[in-house]
């Protein structure tokens, strides 16, 4: 593609579009810095991305084919651009943050007869599904090669940014959603997601691999699985910056746990405790009393001061809580380990409780269309304030001034020299030569498509968070998130299940034992469980992907030997929330601009003063502008976008706040009416 040259000077050049980088981009652009935001991939959000099913298949493909690019004549080009008194620091072209990727398919590969015939889609010719499923024993490389035939990729695998167009309707709705009660929201969502085929019929039918591919666009599969604490750093930032207007959210409906071979609901809110059938009335009182204490535990140091040096687990035991309750509090509410100290456990419990009741009966929110939306929302904010975006466009090397040891420019993959005062880069672009320490941890991930919920209930449209304590003492605790189709991440009739834990080995080794406990994994594709009723009651796994993702969150600036105006953003960490990445973004921003406010509220379109007289000319819609590479979209366009959709009113952030005030904190004792 012949592209025009980029401007030759920016305040900040940012490489990588993960959450941290995107927040920094939005924050810098918002206060008037000129920002160039690049990513070598053809999709947004890096390891935070979410993919359609077919998009994921091509991502797997890319992973398999990735290899070190030999130093080419390009190096000659950039070498020639380095002046005297300058050093070149080359960046890595290889992303090694993902490893041990394996895919297994258990869905039947039979063709769907009638439907297939009616709608012959060229890209869905019996694309080698059988090859995948045969590969159930390990060497799956070949299978992937065949699954993502070229035509599939071309016609169906959309990059997440293209997906913006597909998901257009949500833009019109999002204003009200966050403030509405979850029930009506669910209804709306189920309307949104209802497939042309009757969903009730669909449930009855066996879901074939064909079907998954055909309905692939209904999936939004995140590489990172996280939830948003309703009073966490990310939600606060979304509200404060007005970026929340670009996304909509769904409450997590329930918290589950796996215990004594059974999935149980964790009573965490006042309503849950009241309705719980598994707790005795005395347990109800003990639980409520303990949780009320945790809400302001700092006020009662006498209660826990003897335990500050001891594990939280022992403190719980000392409080004479029953085993039931100890399990719930330790694993599902505080979500800490056996060894966590008392104070940390109390803080975690307190945070959980403070998040209750802000938007629903659990502390968590999940962005519709997947977590991958969030970095894109910040990119959008950056673009609205003049940031320039280029995908499939990277930086070859940094130009460092020998005297000051600062980066003064970068040379991009098209051989253009672009000067900048700060350079922000995602960790995976750094070569090993620039590293002082390579002591990273790993995250084990599994992504499953299943045919029913691990705990069916009245509503089949609930997002569930499941905590799974270590099956053996040496194993890590596993966190599982089960997404329903109304979260816009999977097709109706299926559930998308994410498992995450800190690695002790390969992802498959870490997670397969848990999966086989909770799900039915057939030996022959499409086969019904023949064993006892117990096995039949478990949800069946249709498709599963394992991989390890590098967790660089333990690294800091001393881990790299880089100039002082290069800021490295480590990737996603293994925790449930994104607070770590948001705090990192804020600290990088303050390094770059110590005197500026971090993400102040974006003004409402009607409050913006334009230089020209009269109403501004209507520019192209926003979606076009972000999707075109290297297109500059100005604040005026934002104005135009808003005129198009009247629902995006200025009242929106206020609404989000007003919800906060209305919803009573669920755990506080009710005041007398």
């Amino acid at each position, binding site marked *: 593609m012949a592209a025009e040259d980029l401007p030759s000077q920016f305040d900040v050049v940012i490489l990588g579009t993960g959450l941290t980088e995107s927040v920094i981009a939005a924050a810098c652009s918002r206060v008037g810095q000129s920002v160039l935001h690049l990513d070598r991939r053809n999709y947004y959000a890096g390891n935070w991305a979410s993919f359609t099913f077919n998009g994921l298949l091509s991502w797997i493909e890319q992973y398999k084919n990735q290899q070190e690019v030999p130093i080419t004549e390009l190096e000659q080009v950039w070498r020639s651009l380095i002046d005297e008194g300058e050093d070149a620091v080359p960046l890595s072209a290889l992303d090694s943050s993902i490893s041990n990727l394996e895919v297994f398919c258990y869905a039947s590969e039979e063709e769907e007869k009638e439907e297939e015939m009616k709608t012959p889609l060229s890209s869905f010719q019996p694309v080698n599904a059988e090859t995948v499923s045969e590969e159930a024993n390990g060497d799956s490389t070949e299978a992937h090669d065949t699954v993502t035939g070229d035509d599939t990729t071309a016609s169906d695998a959309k990059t997440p940014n293209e997906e913006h167009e597909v998901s257009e309707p949500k833009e019109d709705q999002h204003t009200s959603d966050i403030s509405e*009660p979850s*029930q*009506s929201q669910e209804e709306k969502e189920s309307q949104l997601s209802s497939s042309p085929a009757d969903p009730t019929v669909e449930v009855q039918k066996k879901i074939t691999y064909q079907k998954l591919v055909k309905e692939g666009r209904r999936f939004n599969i995140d590489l990172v699985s996280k939830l948003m604490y309703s009073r966490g750093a990310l939600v606060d930032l979304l509200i404060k910056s007005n970026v929340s207007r670009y996304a909509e959210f769904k409450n997590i409906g329930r918290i589950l746990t796996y215990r004594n071979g059974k999935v149980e609901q964790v009573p965490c809110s006042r309503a849950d405790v*009241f309705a719980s059938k598994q707790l005795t*009335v*005395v347990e*109800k009182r003990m639980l409520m*009393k303990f949780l009320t204490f945790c809400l302001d535990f700092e006020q009662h140091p006498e209660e826990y001061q003897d335990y500050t040096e001891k594990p939280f687990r022992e403190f719980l035991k000392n409080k004479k809580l029953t085993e039931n309750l100890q399990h719930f509090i330790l694993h599902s509410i505080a979500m800490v380990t056996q060894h966590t100290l008392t104070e940390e456990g109390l803080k975690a419990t307190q945070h959980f409780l403070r998040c209750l009741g802000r938007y629903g009966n659990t502390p968590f929110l999940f962005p519709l269309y997947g977590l991958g939306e969030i970095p894109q929302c910040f990119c959008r904010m950056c673009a609205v304030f003049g940031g320039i975006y280029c995908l499939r466009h990277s930086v070859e090397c940094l130009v460092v001034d020998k005297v000051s040891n600062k980066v003064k420019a970068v040379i991009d993959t098209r051989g253009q020299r672009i000067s900048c005062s700060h350079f922000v880069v995602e960790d995976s672009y750094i070569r090993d030569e620039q590293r002082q320490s390579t002591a990273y941890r790993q995250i084990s991930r599994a992504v499953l498509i299943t045919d029913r919920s691990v705990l069916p209930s009245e509503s089949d449209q609930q997002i569930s968070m499941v905590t799974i304590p270590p099956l053996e003492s040496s194993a890590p605790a596993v966190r599982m998130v089960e997404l329903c189709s109304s979260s816009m991440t999977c097709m109706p009739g299926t559930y998308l299940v994410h498992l995450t834990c800190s690695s002790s080995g390969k992802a498959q080794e870490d997670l397969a034992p848990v999966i086989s406990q909770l799900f039915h994994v057939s030996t022959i594709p499409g086969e019904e469980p023949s064993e006892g009723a117990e096995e039949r009651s478990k949800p069946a796994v249709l498709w599963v992907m394992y991989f390890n993702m590098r967790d660089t969150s333990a690294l800091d600036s001393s881990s790299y030997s880089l100039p002082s105006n290069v800021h490295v953003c480590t990737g996603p960490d293994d925790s449930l929330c994104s607070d770590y990445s948001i705090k990192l973004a804020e600290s990088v921003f303050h390094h770059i601009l110590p005197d500026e406010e971090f993400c102040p509220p974006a003004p409402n379109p009607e409050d913006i003063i334009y230089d020209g007289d009269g109403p501004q000319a209507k520019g192209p819609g926003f979606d076009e502008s972000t999707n075109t590479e290297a297109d500059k979209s100005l604040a005026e366009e934002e104005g135009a976008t808003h005129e198009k959709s009247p629902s995006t009113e200025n009242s929106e952030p206020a609404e989000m706040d007003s919800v906060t005030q209305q919803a009573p904190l669920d755990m506080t004792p*009710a005041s007398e009416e």
Partner: protein
Amino acid sequence: MHGRVKVKSTAQQEEEKRKEREKKLKAFVSARDAVLRKRSAGEHDEEALQLTQQLLSSNPDFATLWNYRREVLLQLETSREKDEVQKLYESELHFIEACLKVNPKSYGCWHHRSWVNTRLPQPDWTRELGLCDRCLSLDERNFHCWDYRRVVVKESGVSVEQELQFTDRLIGSNFSNYSSWHYRSTLLPQLHPQPAPDSIHSHRVCEEQLLKEYELAHNAFFTDPNDQSAWFYYRWLLGREEMISCVYVSRERERVSVAFSKPVHSEGLMLVLDGQPQQVEWRSTHPRLRHSPVWLCDLPPGSVSDISNEHNLTVHWTEKYTHRDCALYTGCAESWCRDSATDQELFRSELSVEKSSVLQAELQSCNQLLELEPQNKWCLLTIILLMRALDPLGHEKETLAHFQTLKVRKYYHYLNERYSGSRK
């Protein structure tokens, strides 16, 4: 710094808002004047509907305008076909819905909605029920909506069973809700009446259901013992049937005295003497006491003074559909008729005639809670009530100890005195 977006200053924004408000006020006042002029001119036309609609959609609490609208609608109704009337009132319902979004607690709106439904040739009660449910899911304590819902339920004939499930749902999502608990207390006796041995109208609930309800209340007050709503419901569950305990008539004084199982208002009392309803003035023991356990009245002079005649008296308590007869026989100077309960039972009448084993079990549950919450006043008070019902003398020490804990408040002092007085 370059490249910043220029934003209007707050002063500028304020000024713009102020002007906007002024403009709105002007428009509102002139429209209001026009409407009021039209009304005094007696014009009842489409234009009036439009004008009032404009005003009411910005201020739905303007009662005069709703009244005017009703006049106009009644006028328009006379000149229209039935299906046109239907359309007219249906669009009225849509309009009210929009007004309710402006103010969900507008008296005028809700009242007008009830009225429209009475005028509608074919009211759609299902839709109205849906509206109430939506409204209550946004604010479960909107009593305007609760009131309106009662009308809708009555008209649409929703089954009592469904309504009980409705309260299940509301209580499940938040049990701090008097409206739901109270509604439940009116539904239960209809759905699970106590099999009544005698023909007297029963307002009690059968025992099997009662046990389930006790459990529900336990769940609520063990979860949050400081929430009163469940305790009040529990108290209602434990409460005995309300009745007329005694009727006394004196020939010489020409006076009737009536005693009740609990303080009542005199409004629902009616006296029938020898088949003739009597106009009498009920007096309580103190003129300022509006609810009293004892009410007196003087009979018309000469009505019972003839000692040689027999008279039959009946006191009706219409509120509870109950009554008590009393016969004044020939030659008797006075007569009374009272509940068969013994004196001791009457003192315990705070609680029902449920099997004492059930009450014993309830006392145990409450004691269990008291162990966890030794200071909880609701729990203490309930325990005192239960102990007094079961065995006032046997539990005397404990009762007094609990009063010590409670005595901070005047009300408990009063109760304390009353209860210790009853020992004598």
